[in-house]
């Protein structure tokens, strides 16, 4: 009797939790009929927002991969004093309120910011341009990738790296033939997370880039703008983002299964002290 009561209690709590988490998502799809949803996506505001979102997110992802991968590799393979502080700094945007990120970006790269006058001298204005959107997305989403990438590179058996070196491969060849393929699935998982986060970026973007239709107005910003103008259009865009995010997360689980890299031996050369 007591056992049955306990089971019922756990089941009930779980049902409430599940209901709470899924109800808003379900509501997005029930308010407007599916056919109408697809038609609303043809709205010029929506089309512009999709183009801006895709373009800025893709460019931001390229930047994240290009600069985040070497950063993660160094942080994963080098041991030096202050490393933990550095890793924490890199991870900070994960927990920073997006508004703080936006203010920070303005203070650094805005017209009157830290580097503003330097950029101005080169005729570069970043604030409230598409470049600002890219930078805001990269700043907020980048740490999702870098953090996962550090863990993936740390999971590569140091003996395999050492073996590569003793077999005549230099650091660059070792990176591309051993470290990168073995960390690959982890890197892809991190990249997918960063992509999803970047697509949903709102706070930092609106502060640093504004919300100009066709220029800086991404899907989340367009949802906010349409919230008062045409609620159903906002719902359609919301539904679109839900579908994309769900597909991303699900494929992540199915394709990568979050595997760490395989190990074939103990790490003995990792400790040199």
């Amino acid at each position, binding site marked *: 009797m007591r056992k049955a009561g306990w089971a019922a209690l756990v089941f009930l709590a779980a049902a409430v939790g599940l209901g709470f988490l899924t109800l808003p998502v379900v509501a997005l799809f029930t308010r407007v009929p599916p056919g109408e949803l697809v038609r609303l996506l043809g709205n010029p505001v929506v089309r512009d927002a999709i183009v801006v979102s895709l373009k800025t997110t893709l460019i931001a992802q390229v930047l994240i991969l290009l600069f985040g991968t070497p950063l993660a590799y160094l942080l994963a393979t080098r041991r030096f004093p202050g490393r933990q502080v550095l890793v924490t700094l890199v991870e900070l945007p994960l927990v920073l309120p997006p508004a703080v990120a936006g203010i920070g970006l303005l203070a650094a790269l805005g017209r009157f910011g830290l580097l503003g006058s330097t950029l101005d001298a080169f005729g570069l204005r970043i604030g409230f341009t598409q470049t600002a959107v890219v930078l805001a997305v990269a700043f907020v989403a980048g740490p999702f990738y870098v953090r996962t990438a550090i863990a993936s590179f740390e999971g590569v*058996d140091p*003996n*395999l790296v*050492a*073996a*590569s*070196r*003793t*077999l*005549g*491969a*230099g650091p660059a060849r070792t990176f591309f*033939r*051993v470290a990168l*393929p*073995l960390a690959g699935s982890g890197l892809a998982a991190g990249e997918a997370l960063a992509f999803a986060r970047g697509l949903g970026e709102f706070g930092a973007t609106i502060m640093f880039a504004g919300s100009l239709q066709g220029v800086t107005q991404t899907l989340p910003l367009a949802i906010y703008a349409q919230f008062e103008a045409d609620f159903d259009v906002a719902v359609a865009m919301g539904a679109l983002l839900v579908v994309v995010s769900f597909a991303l997360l699900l494929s992540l689980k199915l394709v990568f299964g979050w595997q760490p*890299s*395989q*190990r*074939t*031996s*103990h790490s*003995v*050369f990792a400790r*040199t*002290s």
Partner: protein
Amino acid sequence: MATLSADFALGLRSYELRLALEVEGVVALVGPSGAGKTTVLGVIAGLIRPDSGRVALDGEVWLDVERGVNRSPEERRVGLVFQEYALFPHLTVRQNVAYSRNGRVDELLERFRISHLAKERPGSLSGGERQRVALARALARDPGVLLLDEPLAALDAHTKASVRAELQQLLHGLDLPTLIVTHDYEDAIALAETVGVLVDGQLRQIGSPEELIARPRDPFVASFTGANLLHGRVEGPADTDGLTTVRLEAGDLVYSTDAAEGEVGVVVHPWDVSLGQVPAEGSALNLLSGEVASVVQVGNRLRVRIGPLTAEVTAASAERLALEPGRTAFASFKATATRLVALS
């Protein structure tokens, strides 16, 4: 043959590793775990940088801390076989062997009898097969030195004997300065001509297996250098008592309760050997006679070298037997205390 010389010092967590070593032919460093054995290989291969010292292969200086020379691992001609082989799990056997981009891949696959595994990944191989792949991969880059880290430790007892015989044959034919580190003294004396005992980063003693067992410098070396190893050949099948007859290189016959065939190593612990002035009587008892070559005190016991054998006896019985160099004595040991290990 080339000579590898390594002379370096490196502060480790609880002791300083200090080593001066000339490797010509096959040398084994043997010691308990944590003695710094793997670190020695890391320093030679360029994976670990010592505080001071020099590593060179003949005239080719790989490391000279004082002169600021420190070649990176890829610029040192070393073939390093890792303890658990460190094969690349995402590459096939062929890709592993071909990793150093040397043209002799097919020849090596053939030589190590792994051609049929060329398309397999390391995960699906047995321990013995992995070792052959690791050796082929290490030799593929034409190393000037071969370094083996616990080459037999990752194998189960069943495969170990045959792999050890194979490895011995291989090393014999390679003509490369080879340094093996192992915690197993028996493996060391089976594979190497010269054995060094490394404890807490210090090389306690280095010499031929016969020297180490007959004249251990301290009690630790004595306790660690466990056993005599005599070479011989099994004569015919086991007799009705279950005893295997082995003819030693010197011509004497000894008996063992172990089953074996072909070339074998006869392993006897010094404390299982009794000494007498007259031949001991008894069935299933092996008997060898010879001149006492040396008597060395180790702790409260004496190590006495007679012919090919070292015996350990108490000081009292040594005195009673009047053992001194030049006198003839009889050594006896039971067939049950006589181990046979397969050699190639």
